[in-house]
């Protein structure tokens, strides 16, 4: 370990990475196990000329980051399951109005207030389908402290590139974990900013597809004025019910992410070359799975892991291939099977799916996974 290594908690790294990515606004409402992120932002943002606002509730907090982003300021909020539910209406608004922002969800058990401060991966599907209507989703699931930093920056970049809200999905284990790590040099970071209009205000249309599927975005208070709404709209931003325009716009929204899937999907193979049993995992659960893989390999079992750093979109082609090849698939999750359901569809009865679903607030232990590996033989 380099001497420059410093002690960080997962929550602190979200805050630090956000600021290094250029985030200068945080609007939030404290909720465990994500409150530490708000706390760090409240200390760190004023030092870089940013603004921290603690709002009256989760809904308003989501509203503030949409507003701040429209004014040209990269914005973050952090929450947990119940707050994530409350934010969904405004998240939909951000999709519709194409406002870049990052929502960090440190997941806890649900439904409702569920299991405060305890570990879960309960909102994987809410990240995809939490708000109504069809919308393109990018959700990231880091498993290590270094990765929290890296993927938080990536979340901001994705939101800026595609003009969408991006979900940063942490779990309690890694958000509360502290360890000494080395961060990358600031000069080596790749930071993306939204494309701004090249035309003067009188020629500007906020949703002008002449520039591609992601229209350039003007900041408010820089002379450009336009209408922002959650209603279906035309290129001027004003509402429309024209079926052709609405259809075309919905398709464009989805295309923004679907056509760039190859640049977004992010996963890691661990000892997969000769693997007959495959584990699909994400977040801190993947760390227990990795230990289980190592232990099983010691007794000669050919098992490997595919770990998702980005959970939405999934690398469909690779999963399909593995489902055709694997003798058995194991999906450990801190929920009742939100990813396993999806994997089961890919597998389409071609292979056995073994689920491990813990929702009691304690992590899945490597032994739990090891036992299932033996069961799969």
């Amino acid at each position, binding site marked *: *370990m380099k001497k420059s*290594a410093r*002690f960080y908690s997962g929550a602190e790294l979200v805050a630090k990475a956000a600021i290094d990515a250029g985030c200068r606004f945080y609007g939030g409402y404290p909720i*465990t196990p994500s409150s530490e992120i708000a706390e760090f932002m409240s200390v760190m943002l004023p030092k870089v000329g940013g603004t921290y606002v603690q709002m009256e509730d989760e809904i308003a907090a989501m509203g503030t980051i949409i507003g701040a982003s429209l004014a040209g300021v990269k914005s973050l909020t952090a929450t947990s399951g119940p707050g994530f539910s409350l934010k969904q209406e405004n998240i939909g608004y951000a999709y519709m109005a194409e406002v870049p922002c990052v929502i960090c969800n440190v997941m806890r058990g649900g439904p409702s207030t569920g299991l*405060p*401060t305890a570990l879960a991966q309960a909102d994987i599907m809410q990240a995809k389908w939490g708000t109504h209507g069809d919308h393109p989703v990018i959700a990231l699931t880091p498993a290590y402290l270094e990765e929290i930093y890296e993927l938080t920056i990536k979340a901001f970049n994705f939101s800026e590139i595609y003009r969408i809200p991006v979900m940063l999905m942490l779990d309690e*284990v*890694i958000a*509360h*974990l*502290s*360890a*000494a790590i080395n961060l990358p040099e600031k000069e080596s970071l790749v930071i993306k900013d939204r494309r701004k209009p090249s035309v003067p205000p009188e020629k500007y249309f906020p949703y002008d597809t002449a520039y591609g599927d992601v229209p350039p975005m003007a900041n408010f208070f820089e002379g450009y004025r336009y209408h922002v709404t959650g209603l279906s709209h035309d290129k001027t931003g004003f509402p429309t019910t024209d079926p052709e325009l609405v259809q075309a716009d919905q398709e464009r929204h989805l295309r923004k992410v679907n056509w760039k899937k190859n640049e977004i999907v992010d996963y890691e193979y661990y000892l997969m070359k000769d693997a007959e049993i495959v584990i699909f995992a994400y977040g*801190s659960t993947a*760390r*227990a799975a*990795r*230990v289980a893989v*190592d232990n099983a390999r010691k007794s000669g079992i050919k098992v490997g892991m595919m770990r998702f750093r980005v959970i939405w979109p999934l690398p469909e082609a690779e999963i399909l291939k593995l489902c055709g090849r694997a003798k058995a698939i194991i999906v450990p999750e801190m929920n009742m099977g939100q990813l396993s359901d999806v994997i089961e569809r890919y597998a389409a009865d071609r292979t056995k799916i073994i689920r491990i679903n813990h929702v009691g607030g304690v*992590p899945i*232990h*490597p032994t739990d996974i090891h036992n299932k590996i033996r069961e799969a033989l």
Partner: protein
Amino acid sequence: MKIDHYEARFAGVGGQGVILAGKILAYGMVSFEDCRAIETPTYTAQVRGGATKVDVVIDKNHIEYPRTEYLDFFLSLHQKSFNIYFKDIKNDAIVVADPNLTPKIPENIPQKLILVDLIEIAKREMGKTLYSAVMAVGVFAGLTRIIKESNIQKAVLDNAPKGTELDNLKAVKIGIELGKKARKSKEKIIKLSIDDVSIPESGK
């Protein structure tokens, strides 16, 4: 550190400072003992007065599984958290508890048990019960030698709020001396009270 892997847990109730104790230990191990350490706090929704614990996992190498599996050390500052978090403890582990706040420890536990009046000592020697957590990491250092005395002192100083350095240093030194005293004893149950406190030299 002489061994490859070590797991410690400090348990109490919110407000006692046990989470800080874990942070100081993990920080000290990484900064001055050239090993890896992670620290994971757990608290309940009721932050003040709710059961709280912090786990510290120490290893010579990369720590993949981020939770404790078999604890080598357990310290309790409250019955509430003892009842919840006294589990996964090795038979040859060391258990430290404040007997006034953890009065119901089963007599037949297999581990070596050290009962220290930490809160009382903190109150009498430091004027504030708040110092009991820092004293606890001192006890840990003196008792286990997982971290050198000088290194735990450095770790305390680096993490002490401005203006409280000397008091925290005094507290950790009192803890170290109590820990050393317990280490020397061969008894299975060791009791340490205010009478066992040897006042360390005042900090420079």
